[in-house]
């Protein structure tokens, strides 16, 4: 109980340079969120969480997310037990409008095609020596869906949750940087200028029935997707039924906000340099980037493949929106399309593969979970 004790109890005494690296990463996240507007709702909580998580805690004191009985460990429970992601899906469901998808179901297949990124990365991760479980969790980064990635790694490979979550969210934030080059590489100027026909009107009945039937199809094929898609379609039913507007409103506002704050912060706080900065994490980041590239390529090329058979051609840029990363990749498609032809409005059409991509990666996650979970 003297000055030495006080010093030893301070954070400065135990700060390592790797912590400083991670704190810098957190600051960069926040900087990108503010100045570039890259997914600020995710990057700011995660970024500040990274800073908090890299203050060296006092040995044995309940401070960090990994310390028993600490407050942060209780908040982190929602990540570890997979509770936050389905609640986020509930809110996303309550804000998603499936009408464009309902009016042009062909585009759904683009959301399926982009999931090739998940499985190719799975094989790549196996090759590099990751266990099948770990490989599955890494592969889902290519699903481009943060909550799905967190959910699957909490179930299959909790030891990799930190790097997988950070990789998934980083690349989701970097969609406007990663996707355009690939889109230009695999499409001709003429293809990028293809206009899409205005979609047909969708009746309220179709919109109300859709979440119920789509849930039944997905859950019967892959029950492992029940948790995430159950919540997604439940949220959507709350919205489309029109009679539960107040519940839908709370789901897409207070509830999703509270969960987003807690999820982002505690995922960030789980990245203590001492356990985070490993060769494995770097590999995961490389695999994640590859995964995004493959997924985008898969979507674009599949659109071109479909065009071989279709009379009414699809703008192959829409394939890039199949990765999900809602709604950023749809925005990117819209922006690239507009650059070729200022009268070509793809946003509305891009939402169809985009939300299909969300469903597709949830199915992929369900399949990987049930097959690799060892039940």
């Amino acid at each position: 109980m003297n000055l030495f004790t006080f010093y030893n109890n301070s954070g400065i005494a135990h700060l390592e340079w790797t912590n400083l690296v991670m704190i810098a990463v957190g600051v960069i996240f926040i900087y990108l969120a503010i100045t570039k507007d890259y997914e600020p709702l995710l990057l700011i909580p995660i970024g500040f969480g990274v800073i908090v998580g890299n203050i060296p805690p006092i040995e044995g004191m309940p401070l960090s997310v990994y310390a028993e009985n600490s407050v942060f460990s209780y908040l982190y429970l929602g990540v570890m037990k997979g509770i936050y992601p389905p609640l986020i899906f509930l809110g996303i469901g309550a804000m998603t409008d499936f009408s464009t998808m309902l009016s042009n179901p062909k585009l759904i297949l683009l959301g399926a095609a982009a999931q090739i990124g998940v499985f190719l990365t799975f094989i790549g991760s196996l090759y590099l020596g990751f266990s099948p479980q770990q490989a599955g969790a890494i592969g889902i980064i290519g699903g481009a869906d943060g909550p799905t990635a967190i959910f699957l790694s909490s179930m299959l490979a909790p030891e990799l949750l930190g790097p997988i979550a950070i990789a998934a969210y980083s690349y989701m934030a970097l969609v406007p940087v990663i996707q355009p080059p690939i889109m230009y590489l695999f499409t001709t100027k003429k293809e990028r200028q293809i206009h899409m026909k205005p979609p047909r009107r969708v009746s309220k009945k179709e919109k109300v029935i859709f979440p119920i039937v789509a849930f039944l199809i997905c859950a019967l094929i892959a029950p492992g997707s029940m948790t995430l898609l159950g919540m997604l379609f439940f949220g959507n039913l709350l919205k489309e039924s029109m009679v539960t507007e107040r519940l839908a409103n709370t789901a897409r506002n207070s509830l999703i906000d509270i969960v987003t704050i807690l999820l982002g912060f505690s995922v960030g706080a789980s990245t203590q340099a001492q356990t985070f900065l490993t060769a494995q994490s770097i590999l995961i980041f490389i695999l994640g980037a590859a995964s995004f590239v493959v997924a985008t390529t898969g979507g674009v090329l599949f659109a071109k493949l479909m065009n071989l058979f279709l009379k009414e051609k699809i703008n192959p840029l829409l394939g890039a929106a199949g990765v999900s990363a809602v709604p950023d990749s749809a925005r990117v498609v819209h922006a690239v399309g507009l650059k070729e032809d200022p009268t070509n409005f793809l946003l509305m059409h891009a939402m169809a593969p985009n939300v299909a991509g969300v469903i597709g990666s949830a199915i992929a996650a369900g399949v990987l979970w049930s097959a690799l979970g060892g039940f």
Partner: protein
Amino acid sequence: MSFTNIGFHNIVYPGFNGLQFSLMGMGLVFGGLLIIAVYILILPRLLAIGAPKPQKNTGKDEKDAAEEEEILLAIATALHLHNDFPEGEDRITWKSHGDMESPWLVSGRLHSLNIRKPANTWNISK
């Protein structure tokens, strides 16, 4: 995980075939979304069968009747309020599709109409 263990033998080995597994996984994803797509294509036709025009009209009539009743109810309420409490503030509106709290609010509003003087100061009782 150790980096000494890189190679194709990690992908296919006795009891586990990563390639076949991936193919099947991809197949399920495609299959699921394909069925959804087919369902979406078919549904409008099914709905067209299930809801022929006469039936539609009946439904509409019922709805109209219900709405009409509600409108009459609202008018009657408004008249009632106007006649019985002429000094009241007639700012009541009858929400046809109110949320959970509306009946409470309506009840409260109806109640407040019976009160001649403002009751929101702490020290005035009865």
